[in-house]
């Protein structure tokens, strides 16, 4: 399951955020009568369509796995937290239809009709993200029920469960991450072309449009991320202690970068320590008391503190680098209306797509591994929810192999598409909206 999710989480940001970027290019193309922008929008829609199709497959497998792997979760709490998945079902259905119309409508629909048919896509994508994140945040802050005398949930209120406490934090964090990932990933593809000397208007626009989206999302993400960290410190202290490897509760906590945690003795060896910074970041002063792992009974401590902590540091590190990248970009663009010329900037920008994904996977590890040993926070342990069926490891191996093939296939196909596009050049023989000339449409 974890593996399928890690795969799925690569596709989701593209499905959520790429349609917006593609519609911006589409709008620009129609407004300014800009063929290059239209070509970009058209190509991005095909990339989005492909990832969307693969995402549909891995999403279906995920809904199987909810039962195949976690009967203890769906069996006990299905009626509490199942509703958001049902909402996602609708959102996904709408998105599938709209994406199909958009992709297959390039040739013959009227230009603005086509554009407006695409406009709902980002909104249904957001509705889908809302519901799935709601289900996940429910696992962190379970709500909408009370545990009855026999240990099963009673007084169920699925709406309270959907609108649980962690939802606004997780949702804003995720949506911004999606826009960053899609923006940086698309831009980095064209930065690579730029570095190889293809410095035409096509590549310039291909960098500027998505990078601007990412540049807006990144600083916002920094603020949201900081807010969330403090929220976690107050609401899921065990997870926070693991993220920052705080061993003893108390004031004046150092910020430890990397290092090695020893669960036996509850101590940290190595790493870079910045005195007092952790307390300062958590509460604004060095006197702030930060919760430590000593406050949690050993059997309830996150099972793998090192993974959580390292993942957290990687995520924050990447985010810091990306903030520097977009600040540099913003300054240069403000002064010269151009992409920075520095090789260093271009190299980092070329890597930014991969880096965002590293950060997303790391962030996912922080929230999921950091919640262990609980699957539903403070209520159900993961081992209580897992299936008793044999052969889980066999099927896990098959799933991993299959997804490696699927992932490789997706990349090969995307690359084949890109090579074909490069051969075709920017001015296409099959112009969009071709068979009906614009003049006829206007009259």
């Amino acid at each position, binding site marked *: 399951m974890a593996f399928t999710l890690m795969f799925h989480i690569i596709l989701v940001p593209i499905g959520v955020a790429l349609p917006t970027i593609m519609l911006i290019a589409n709008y620009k193309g129609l407004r300014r009568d800009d063929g290059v922008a239209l070509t970009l929008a*058209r190509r991005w829609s095909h990339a989005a369509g492909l990832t969307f199709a693969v995402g549909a497959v891995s999403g279906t497998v995920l809904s199987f796995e909810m039962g195949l792997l976690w009967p203890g979760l769906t069996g006990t709490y299905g009626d509490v937290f199942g*509703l958001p998945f049902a909402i996602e079902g609708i959102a996904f259905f709408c998105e599938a239809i709209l994406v199909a119309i958009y992709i297959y409508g390039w040739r013959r629909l009227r230009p603005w009709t086509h554009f407006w048919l695409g406009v709902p896509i980002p909104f249904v994508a957001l509705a889908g993200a809302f519901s799935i994140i709601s289900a996940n945040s429910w696992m962190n802050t379970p709500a909408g029920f009370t545990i009855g005398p026999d240990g099963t949930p009673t007084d169920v209120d699925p709406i309270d469960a959907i609108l649980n406490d962690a939802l606004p934090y997780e949702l804003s964090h995720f949506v911004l991450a999606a826009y960053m990932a899609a923006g940086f990933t698309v831009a980095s593809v064209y930065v690579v072309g730029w570095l190889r000397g293809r410095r035409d208007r096509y590549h310039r626009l291909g960098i500027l449009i998505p990078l601007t989206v990412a540049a807006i999302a990144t600083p916002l993400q920094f603020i949201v991320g900081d807010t969330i960290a403090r929220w976690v410190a107050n609401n899921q202290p065990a997870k926070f202690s693991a993220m920052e490897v705080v061993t003893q509760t108390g004031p004046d906590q150092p910020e430890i970068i990397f290092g090695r945690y020893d669960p036996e003795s509850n101590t940290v060896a190595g790493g870079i320590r910045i005195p007092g910074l952790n307390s300062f970041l958590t509460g604004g002063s060095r006197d702030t008391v930060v919760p430590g792992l000593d406050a949690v009974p050993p059997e309830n401590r996150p099972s793998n503190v090192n993974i959580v902590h390292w993942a957290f540091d990687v995520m924050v590190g990447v985010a810091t680098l990306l903030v520097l990248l977009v600040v540099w970009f913003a300054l240069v663009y403000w002064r010269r209306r151009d992409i920075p010329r520095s090789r260093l900037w271009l190299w980092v920008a070329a890597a930014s797509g991969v880096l965002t994904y590293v950060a997303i996977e790391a962030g996912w590890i922080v929230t999921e591994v950091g919640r262990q040993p609980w699957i539903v926070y403070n209520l159900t342990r993961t081992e209580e929810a897992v299936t008793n069926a044999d052969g889980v490891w066999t099927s896990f191996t098959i799933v991993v192999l299959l*997804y490696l093939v699927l992932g490789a296939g997706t990349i090969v196909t995307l690359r084949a598409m890109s090579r074909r596009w490069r051969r075709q050049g920017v001015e296409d023989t099959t112009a969009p909206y071709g068979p009906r000339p614009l003049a006829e449409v206007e009259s």
Partner: protein
Amino acid sequence: MTAADGVAVVLVLAVTLFAWSGLADYGAGFWDLVAGGRERGRRPRELIDVAVTPVWEANHVWLVFLLIVCWTGFGIAFASLMSTLFIPLSLAALGIVLRGSSFALRKDAAREGRRHLVGLLFGAGAVLTPFCLGAALGAVMAGRVPVGNAAGNALTSWFNPFAGTVGCLAVAVGAFLSAVYLVAEARRRGTPELQGYFRVRAVAAGAVGLVLGVVALVALRAVQRQMFDRVVGRSAILIVLGVVALGATLVLALRGAVHGLRVVAAVGVAALVWSWAVAQYPYLLPFRLTIAEGAGAAVTQRWLLAWAVVAMVTVLPLLIVLYVLDQRGDLGEDGFTHSG
């Protein structure tokens, strides 16, 4: 009728819709698999490709709806099913990945050799998934799924003559429906020889399906007499309706009709699905767990019903838009990515 009964009806509706659309997609995959060598099978494969590509994702969603409604409405039943039938349902998921990914990727795989290879993978998934889903259904009907986390036998629950026959029946039903749809599709695209090609296959699949249905009934009588009595008792009318519709489809097909063929075939398949549902009512897991016992909180059931209404209100207009645009010829392969 309680809200939980309503949700059970929604569940059976989702099964029906999946049988009409998703199962038929798998059937099309089956015909793709047996279409013969690269040259000989080119034309039917092309028709299958253009017919299924725009709709397969949407058709898939019914299955996802089915799973979600099941675990939200009847969590205990879902957990019992998924853990006891771990093997066939995992294999069904495997088939979905094979089929879906090859469909997603085949369109853009440039070289024809690679395309052919991907098509073979697609075919394997197209048989695996309906068979396993059918076998799982057979296990439920035969009362082999007890309540609890992996409480039933992981192998014999579904690996037995009755469940196996139901699995084969599911494959045949998919193949039958898709052949019928493809006859109409061939006509719409003006390819008379393909019309004949799929007409023969529709008749063959229908005949095989009829035989398998009889075998399944005989097997059911042997393994689960109580359920057999219910099927031939209170579901008798539906069974008769199904057989009549199947017969009508065969007659229409042999006489060369196209109009009404799809509708009659779909009615027959729906009658089959509902004969199962009616026979099993009010049990979720026959003779062990009723709808009332397996239902989650009542408020959730009511929300699920509201959800079902919202789903219809939002999805149907969009489907109509898609359908209208498609029929007006406003939608077409972009050409632009696949021309290389």
